[in-house]
């Protein structure tokens, strides 16, 4: 597909922050001389105890106001996490307006109610709604990314998302259909294109994100995961067959209850490990392919770390009836931040602000309700 680094900014005519010559100089300097680059780690400074209090107080206020306060709660939580995510001692800033989020949520609730009732009353109506959703989903994704970008800032410079509906529609619907028709073989391509779409339409100030091709590396990753999955199915199948045969001789019947438990644990553990592997790899590949002006990333998440994190989180959350949730969220974010380093040529001082338009929160809120995962 597109070759990295050769694209000119194409959306909204947004000028690149750096003059072409300067940019070329950066590009030339970046590849061979990694040593010239300053390494700025992403530091996450939130504390689980403090976040627990914020979380629980805001939850109580949400209940007391019958959900209306939830928009304010969301903004406070986001502001807390953004501010505690620091690069070179500067935190991020979340500027979302609770009223905008509340409006979006009300629309989302109405849509969700229509959707769930439509299905019960008439299957035909549900089909109409699904078609409507197919048309609306790209819009929701674009709006959601735009709202989040518009309300995120670092060093008083906003992010900006310039992706268009048409482009998003092409990725989601066209490549989505391709994935279905090809029985899933097209999925890594869809995922790669979706991430590329999301990434390269972001701007930090006037500096547009660039992202290299992900298709080949995504295919390698998914193939590996798929191979491991098939292999473990075969091994598991053989083991069960051998065991049940062996036991049948002695015990005139099916497997005793206890035998199933190790298999269930192994199966669930394997699934979790695979999930963590994909998470880690996709995340690393994505970040490592992104360039923002003089900035590149070094993301080194490890599958087994993530899997361990998830297992402990799940056990802790269930054991505490959900009270460990803030702790689980904080430690997961801390791990992710700790494995991300910025490689900066020169410094972070020369980004230039652009003009940005106000964006409604509807897309984001609806997307949240329907649980879209854009994977970035």
């Amino acid at each position, binding site marked *: 597909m597109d070759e990295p680094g050769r694209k000119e900014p194409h959306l909204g005519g947004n000028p690149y922050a750096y003059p072409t010559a300067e940019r070329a100089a950066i590009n030339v300097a970046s590849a061979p001389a990694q040593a010239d680059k300053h390494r700025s780690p992403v530091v996450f400074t939130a504390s689980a105890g403090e976040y627990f209090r914020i979380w*629980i107080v805001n939850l109580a206020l949400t209940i007391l106001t019958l959900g209306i306060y939830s928009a304010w709660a969301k903004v406070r939580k986001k502001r807390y996490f953004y501010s505690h995510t620091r690069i070179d001692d500067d935190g991020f800033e979340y500027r979302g307006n609770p009223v905008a989020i509340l409006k979006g949520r009300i629309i989302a609730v109405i849509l969700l109610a229509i959707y769930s009732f439509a299905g019960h009353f008439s299957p035909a109506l549900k089909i109409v709604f699904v078609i409507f959703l197919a048309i609306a989903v790209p819009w929701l994704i674009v709006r959601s990314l735009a709202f989040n970008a518009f309300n995120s800032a670092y*060093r008083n410079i906003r992010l900006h998302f310039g992706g268009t509906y048409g482009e998003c529609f092409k990725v989601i619907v066209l490549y989505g259909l391709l994935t279905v028709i090809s029985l899933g073989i097209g999925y890594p391509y869809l995922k790669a294109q979706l991430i590329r779409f999301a990434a390269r339409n972001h701007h930090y100030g006037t500096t547009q994100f660039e992202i290299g091709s992900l298709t080949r590396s995504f295919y390698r990753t998914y193939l590996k995961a798929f191979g491991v999955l098939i292999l473990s199915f075969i091994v598991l199948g053989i083991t069960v067959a051998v065991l049940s045969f062996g036991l049948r001789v002695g015990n005139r*019947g099916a497997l005793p209850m206890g035998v199933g438990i190790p298999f269930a644990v192994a199966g669930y553990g394997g699934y979790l490990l695979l999930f963590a592997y994909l998470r880690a790899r996709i995340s690393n590949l994505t970040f490592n392919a992104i360039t923002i002006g003089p900035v590149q990333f070094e993301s080194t998440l490890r599958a087994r770390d993530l899997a361990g994190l998830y297992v402990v989180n799940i056990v802790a959350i*269930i054991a505490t009836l959900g009270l460990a949730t803030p702790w689980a969220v904080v430690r997961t974010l801390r791990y992710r931040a700790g494995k991300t380093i910025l490689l900066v040529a020169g410094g972070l001082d020369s980004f230039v602000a652009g003009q940005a338009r106000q964006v409604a929160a509807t897309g984001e809120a609806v997307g949240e309700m329907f649980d879209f995962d854009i994977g970035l």
Partner: protein
Amino acid sequence: MTEFSAVYYDGRTSARTPVRVRALDHSLHLVGAELNIEVPFADVRVDARVGDTRRILSLPGGAQLHTDDHAALAALFPRANRLEAWVHELERRWGYALAALMLIAGAAWWSVTLGLPVVAKWVADFVPIDIEGRLGAETLYALDKSLCTRSALGADRQQALQKLLGTLTSGLNDRYPYHLEFRACGAVGPNAFALPGGAIVVTDALIKLAQNDPQIAAVLAHEIGHVRRRHGLRLALQSAGAAALIAALAGDAVSITGLAVILPTALLQNGYSREFENEADADAFRRLKAIGLSPKYFAEIMMRLEDYHAKSGGRQDGDTRDTATGKGALDYLSTHPATAERIARALANQ
């Protein structure tokens, strides 16, 4: 005089300028490298505090000051963001966190035990009977696809039982088109299900298990209670509500684990259905007496059912593994803990 350190960002580039800020009578005075400006207090907007995160002051023209000096800001802007400042005071102390926790636990307990059933009943009242019937038809379709096949019962016998149902439902005046659906559902064993909308599924095994028609009538009377009180629809609504509630409470956790939502929902469903059983039982006793039958028949068929489950370990496939018996009975009891109680109540109601 208040003075504090901050970093100045002009909003045009990402450059940072460390500054010293001094508060004058009506303005802030910023001094840093190549920077010396004065900003009237009226033009400064300070953000609300969240935890101990760095504070941001918005200056005219899109510039910002970032500082960690909470004390200085509290002194300079004592009245800013009063509502969120109050929220911050709540968030700061463990005592309030504990109070919040108790409030949440109380609200969750209340809504699950009292609120949800009331809301579900209220919503169910808005659902027309023919739509309930369509839901029931879908459920029956699913049963036919998975567990049940055609009944082996003769046409005469089927007609006689339909008539029995007619006797039981005569004079109810509730517009439900009551009718029996006979099925052979091997794995299910002797059982009957009230579908939303008036259909009652009866398994061949149940007909075989009953010693006489009054015992069958007792079961049918119980199922009629489920239909009339719209238990199927209400249970579905309550479970959906509980799942939504737990998802809302767990919030961030949902992305981490779906299990945390499913597990308590299943447990709640169990509790709800037990209450519905008791309601349907009470209806059945009344119904039976109305047509001149004793509730003792209900007790009899319940005892036979319990016997059946204890003997076969809840299985119907001819497998007489003695090792499974203990587990099967335990399984049955965990979902029907109050069977003995229900039998006693039927006998007391004679």
